[in-house]
C-alpha cells in the first residue's frame, strides 16, 4: 500500500490563507497610508478645531467621558479631547522637529565616520560611547537644563541625544557598500568619490534613513513628553501633552481618572502609529527583516 503525502488540497481555510498572503503587499501599503493619515490628522487638528471648546465653561466642570465630551472635561469645563489634540499636535511638531534635526546629525556623523575613517571615525565612536554610558533620561535632563530649559531646551536635548543609533546604522552601511565589489570596480574605472556616493551610496542609505527617521519619531515624542511631564520641558502656558498629564496628577486623588487616562491613550496611539508606519515601510523595503 502506498499513500500520497500532503497532497495540496484547496480547503476554504487554505484559499483564505493564500488570499491573505497574496494581499500582504496591498495590506502593507494600506497600513502606511492609514498611519500617515491618522498622524497628519492629529498634527493639523488644531487649525480645524480652532479655539472652540478651550474656553472655561464653569457649568461643564469635571464631566466624565460622554458622547458630548469623549474625553470628559477638566476642572475649568474645557473639553479634554480638544485639549489633548492641541497638546499632542504641539508635542508631535516639537518631536518631529527634534527628531529630524537628530536624523540630520546622525546621517552627517554616520557618513563622516564611514567615509573618512581614521581619527574622525574614532572621535565619533567615542562620542557615541560616552552617550551610551549615561542613562538617556539623565542625559536629556542635563542637556535641557544646560541650554536653559523651555521649548528650545527640549528640542536641543532631544535632537542631540537621538542620533546615535542612526549614525551607527549609516556608518555600517557606508563601510559595507565601500568594501563591495561594485564600488571597487567604480574606483578602478576612475569614477569620482562624488559619483560613487551618488550612484552607489545614496540608493542604499536613503531607505535606511527613512525607516530610521520614522522609528526615531516615537522615541523623540515620548522623551519630549517625559521632559515636559517632569517640568523641564515646555512651559505650563503651552499645554503640550506632557503638561496636560502632569496637571492631571494634581486632580488624581479626586477620582477624575479621565484627565490622565484619555490624553495618555491618545499619546500611546500616536506613538504606536509611528511604530506601525516604520515597521510597514521597512517590510516594504526589506521583507526579510520585518516583524511580520
Amino acid at each position: 500500500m502506498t499513500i500520497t503525502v500532503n497532497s495540496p488540497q484547496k480547503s476554504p481555510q487554505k484559499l483564505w490563507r493564500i488570499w491573505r498572503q497574496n494581499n500582504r503587499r496591498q495590506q502593507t501599503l494600506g497600513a502606511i497610508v492609514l498611519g500617515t493619515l491618522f498622524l497628519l490628522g492629529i498634527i493639523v487638528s488644531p487649525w480645524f478645531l480652532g479655539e472652540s471648546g478651550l474656553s472655561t465653561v464653569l457649568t461643564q466642570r469635571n464631566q466624565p467621558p460622554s458622547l458630548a465630551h469623549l474625553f470628559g472635561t477638566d476642572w475649568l469645563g474645557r473639553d479634554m479631547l480638544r485639549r489633548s489634540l492641541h497638546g499632542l499636535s504641539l508635542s508631535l511638531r516639537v518631536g518631529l522637529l527634534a527628531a529630524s534635526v537628530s536624523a540630520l546629525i546622525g546621517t552627517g556623523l554616520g557618513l563622516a565616520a564611514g567615509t573618512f575613517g581614521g581619527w574622525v571615525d574614532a572621535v565619533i565612536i567615542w562620542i557615541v560611547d560616552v552617550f551610551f554610558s549615561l542613562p538617556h533620561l539623565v542625559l536629556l535632563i542635563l542637556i535641557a537644563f544646560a541650554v536653559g530649559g523651555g521649548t528650545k531646551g527640549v528640542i536641543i536635548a532631544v535632537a542631540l541625544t537621538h542620533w546615535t543609533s542612526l549614525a551607527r546604522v549609516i556608518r555600517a552601511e557606508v563601510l559595507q557598500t565601500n568594501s563591495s565589489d561594485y564600488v571597487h570596480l567604480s574606483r578602478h574605472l576612475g569614477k569620482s568619490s562624488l559619483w560613487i556616493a551618488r550612484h552607489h551610496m545614496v540608493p542604499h542609505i536613503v531607505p535606511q534613513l527613512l525607516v530610521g527617521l520614522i522609528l526615531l519619531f516615537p522615541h523623540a515624542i515620548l522623551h519630549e513628553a517625559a521632559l515636559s511631564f517632569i517640568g523641564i520641558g515646555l512651559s505650563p502656558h503651552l499645554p503640550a501633552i506632557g503638561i496636560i498629564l502632569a496637571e492631571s496628577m494634581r486632580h488624581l486623588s479626586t477620582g477624575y481618572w479621565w484627565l490622565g487616562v484619555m490624553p495618555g491613550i491618545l499619546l500611546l496611539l500616536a506613538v504606536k502609529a509611528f511604530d506601525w508606519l516604520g515597521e510597514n515601510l521597512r517590510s516594504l523595503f526589506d521583507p526579510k527583516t520585518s516583524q511580520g
Partner: protein
Amino acid sequence: MQIRLLLVFAAQKLLRLGRLLMAVAVFTFVLLSFSPIDPVKAYIGADMMQISADQQALIAERWGLDQPMWSRFLDWLGQLLQGNLGTSLVFNQPVSEVIASRFQASLQMLAIAWLLSGLLGLALGLIAGALEGHWIDRLIRLYAYTLASSPTFWVALLLLIVFAVSFKIAPICCAAPPGVLSQNVTFWQHLHHLLLPAVALSIIGIANIALHTRQKLIDVLHSDYVLFARAQGESLWNIVRYHGFRNILLPAITLQFASLSELFGGSVLVEQVFAYPGLGEATVQAALRSDIPLLVGIVFFSALFVYTGNTLADLSYPIIDPRIRLGGQ
C-alpha cells in the same frame, strides 16, 4: 593563573572607567560652561532683588566663577579627584551624602523592578519564541509592543489611578505614611510604599527583555544543533529546556545588565509620579532648582552605575559560556 587574569581584568576595567569618567567630566563641564544659566542667579532665585551687585560678585568669586575656563576646569577636576563633589544647594548637604541616602531609597525599588522585569521578561520571551506565530505569541508581542510604546510616567499614573485611587490598596505617594518618622517605619509599611513604584518600573523593562529573548530563542530554534536535536526526536519543550535556555542565557544576562541604564532613567519618572524620595526625584529637583553640583554628581553616579552593570555582565560571561575567557576576545 585565575587570580592573575582577574587582576588584569580589574585593572583594564578600572582604566576604562577612569577614561570614561574623564570623558563625562569634559562633556559636562563644556556643556555647563556654555549654558546661559547664571549659577549665582539660579542659586539666589527670587531673592535676587535684595542682593547687591557686590554681594553677587563675592559669591561668584567664592565659587571661582571669575577664573578662566580651563583653570576652573582643572580646579573642579582636582576637587572631584579628591572625592569632593561639592554641596547641594537644594538639600544644603554634601552632594555625596545626598546621593548616598537617596540612592539607598532607590536601590530597593530598582532591585525589585530589575528582578521582576528580568524574570517575567525571560518567561514571556521564552513562551513567545517557542510558540512563534501562534496566537499566544501574537498576544505577548502585542502586549510587549504596546508597553514599549507607552510613556513610562503614564503607565505609573495608570497604576496609581487603579491601585491607589480606585482600589485603595496602595499608598498614593511617598516612601512612608504621612507623619511617621523615618526611623519608625515598619518593614511592611516600607514594602507597601515600595511595591507599586517597583512594579511600575518593572513593567517598562519587561517589554524589551521579552522581545529580545523571543528573538534570541527563535534564532536558537533555527540553529543547526536544534535541527539535530529535532532529528533525534526531542520535543519542542525539551529543546527549549535543554538547548534554548542554555543558549539564550548569555544574551539575556547582557541585556538584563544593560537594562540598568533604562531602569535608572525610568526611576526618575516613576519616582516623580509616586513622589518617592529617591535619587530620581532628586535629579528632577536638581534640574528644576538649578542645583548644578547635585546634578553633576548624579550624572557621574549614573555613569558609574551603568558601567558597573556592564562590568558585572562581563564577569558573568565566562561562568555561563566555557568558550569565553576573562579578558580575552
